[in-house]
């Protein structure tokens, strides 16, 4: 009992420290390097290096904040979906939810840009949410008919492909100016996020996260299986609806601003569970958020700097680190059963 809470404390400190370090590195490194001393000057407003100041304030800070917030949201969303479907490799990307959001956002963008308007943050999030719910609706329909979890994943992947195909189709026939915008975004990237977006993102993410955390007791009960959850007094139908809405909102926000990002939702919750040695939602929800934030900051740093000036898409990096994790998870589960 005592040793468990000690372990949690150590792990939380570790994650927080990692997050801070990665956050700082994201601010310091890039096309121009900023030292810690310069950074402090910029933040305090006493720096006369205008270029550096505008890069930090206008580009790197919002980008790093977005990477952290969205990464956290993505992995919490993954944790919720794994709980909901009782499937260790469920996640917003695998189940086609990200692709669904991508599709509706692409359509919305084409329509808005065609009319010569830019999309507001709220409009982006709404479009992504509609797309998420659309894909998830299909996955749910299938999950009612077939209980086998492997089939669920297959149908999710297929829905993802269909949505991507439709998106590609739309992008191919969109006017030139739209394509440039869409192309970067549909590959997945944290670039081009401004401080206004960050405010919108943090408002949505923190609201959803708070509700999720408050529900951790129910999530824990639900994860024991429906029979026992119900005998513990949980209203299964209501709870399932809330769970689906929360995970959709969280992954929709990510897709709206950063496009589809793969593997974070699957890999991070599992890594965090192994690290903490527990699956208690009270611990794993905040820990997944921190872990996802750190993972995305790290991935974005790699994406930006390793092949600079070329920039990799964020999914390229998350897949390289996330996909082996998924294989490891499946192997380990097989040996455990």
């Amino acid at each position: 009992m005592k040793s468990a809470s000690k372990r949690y404390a150590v792990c939380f400190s570790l994650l927080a420290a990692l997050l801070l370090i990665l956050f700082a590195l994201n601010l310091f490194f890039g096309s121009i390097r900023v030292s810690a001393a310069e950074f402090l000057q910029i933040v305090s407003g006493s720096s006369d290096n205008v270029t550096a100041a505008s890069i930090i304030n206008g580009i790197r800070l919002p980008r790093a904040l977005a990477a952290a917030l969205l990464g956290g949201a993505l992995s919490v969303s993954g944790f919720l979906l794994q709980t909901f479907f009782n499937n260790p490799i469920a996640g917003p990307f695998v189940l086609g939810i990200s692709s669904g959001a991508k599709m509706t956002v692409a359509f919305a963008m084409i329509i808005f840009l065609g009319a010569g308007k830019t999309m507001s943050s709220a409009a982006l999030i709404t479009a992504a949410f509609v797309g998420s719910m659309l894909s998830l609706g299909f996955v749910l329909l299938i999950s009612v008919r077939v209980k086998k979890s492997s089939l669920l994943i297959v149908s999710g992947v297929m829905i993802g492909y269909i949505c991507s195909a439709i998106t590609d189709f739309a992008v191919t026939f969109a006017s030139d100016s739209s394509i440039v915008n869409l192309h970067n975004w549909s590959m997945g990237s944290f670039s081009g996020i401004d401080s206004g977006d960050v405010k919108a993102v943090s408002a949505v993410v923190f609201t959803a996260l708070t509700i999720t955390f408050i529900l951790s007791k129910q999530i824990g009960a639900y994860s024991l299986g429906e029979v026992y959850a119900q005998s513990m007094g949980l209203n299964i139908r209501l709870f399932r609806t809330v769970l689906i809405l929360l995970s959709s909102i969280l992954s929709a926000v990510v897709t709206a601003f950063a496009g589809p990002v793969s593997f974070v939702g699957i890999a991070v919750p599992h890594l965090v569970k192994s690290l903490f040695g527990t699956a208690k939602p009270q611990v794993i929800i905040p820990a997944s958020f921190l872990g996802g934030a750190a993972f995305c900051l790290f991935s974005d740093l790699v994406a930006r700097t390793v092949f600079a000036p070329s920039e990799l898409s964020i999914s390229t990096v998350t897949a390289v680190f996330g996909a082996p994790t998924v294989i490891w998870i499946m192997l380990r589960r097989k040996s455990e059963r």
Partner: protein
Amino acid sequence: MGNKFLYTKNLSVGYDRNILIDGINISVNRGQITTLIGPNGAGKSTILKTIIGQLDKISGTFFIDGKNAEGISGNELAKTMSVLMTERMETELMTCADVVKTGRYPYTGQLGILSKHDKSKVTEAMELTRVTEIGNRNFNRISDGQRQRVMLARAICQEPDVLILDEPTSFLDIRHKLEMLNILKMLVCEKDIAVIMSMHELDLAQRVSDRIVCVGGKGIDKYGTSEEIFTAEYIGKLYGIAPYCYNENYGTAELEKPRGVPQVFVIAGGGTGINAFRNLQRQNIPFITGIIHENDIDFPAASALAAEVITEKAFEPISSDNIEKAAEKIALCREVICCTDKFGTMNIGNKKLKEYAQKQGKLKNSH
């Protein structure tokens, strides 16, 4: 019947609006174990799943502690009723103690933090089912027997008034079966809770249950005490087996008797014949046995396994008519096995049979 804690009124249960069992009227008392028996697929689990709210009832009502179950909130119900179902609990990185603690769920606050009182209930339940030593082990890595005890501790610390168990003793070895039932009996006696369970082990059900509900065919076939239900005739009908296979005193059954012309005559009595009967059954050799008194301990196995049993009335000396009858049968058999060497006033007739067999050169002593 003033203390009926849970009762049903024309309850119909089933899946997807298809009625499986109709018109269920049973009541369950505090301080009693009520057991559902019946063939596979008769609907025992369906009834239990409906009572715990996992399945929607099709029609009718049921009442818990005088209140219509429909009006009871999930949390209120959780404080009244706890369950141990056949579905395996899905846990990840949870110790046995963690699993038991989930029983306190209805009593904890929004963040699920256990109070001192909650913890003492957990400890108490774990001691009761003797799982304290395995408290720190991973729940996925313990034996079936240990798992059922952990799940029982969990159900107990939920402090229910009624405990519902679906086949709690299936997959357990005999020691764990007895332990499980002893704990239930104790709960019923000491904590005055009501227990409803389903069971396939008729022998144990007969011993532990205060009330038996027989689920078969389209409804509740019969409802009553152990003595009323466990008769060879009725159990035979309920499960569709020949009544002579089933021993109503012990709740056990014998395998089907060998078919064909009897080849062996077995002289038995006083429990000496049972092993010989079973031996012949295993070798698929049809046999006749006698002369066995109707109250003899050999009688149930004899009537289950022998092609024919020559019987004598209880407590009466063997009549000469019967000896004659048996001798005729011996003449037809190729071999005689005599299982007993003790002959007294009542079975002196069997000694005569033994001598007769010896004269015929057919006797083969079993000891």
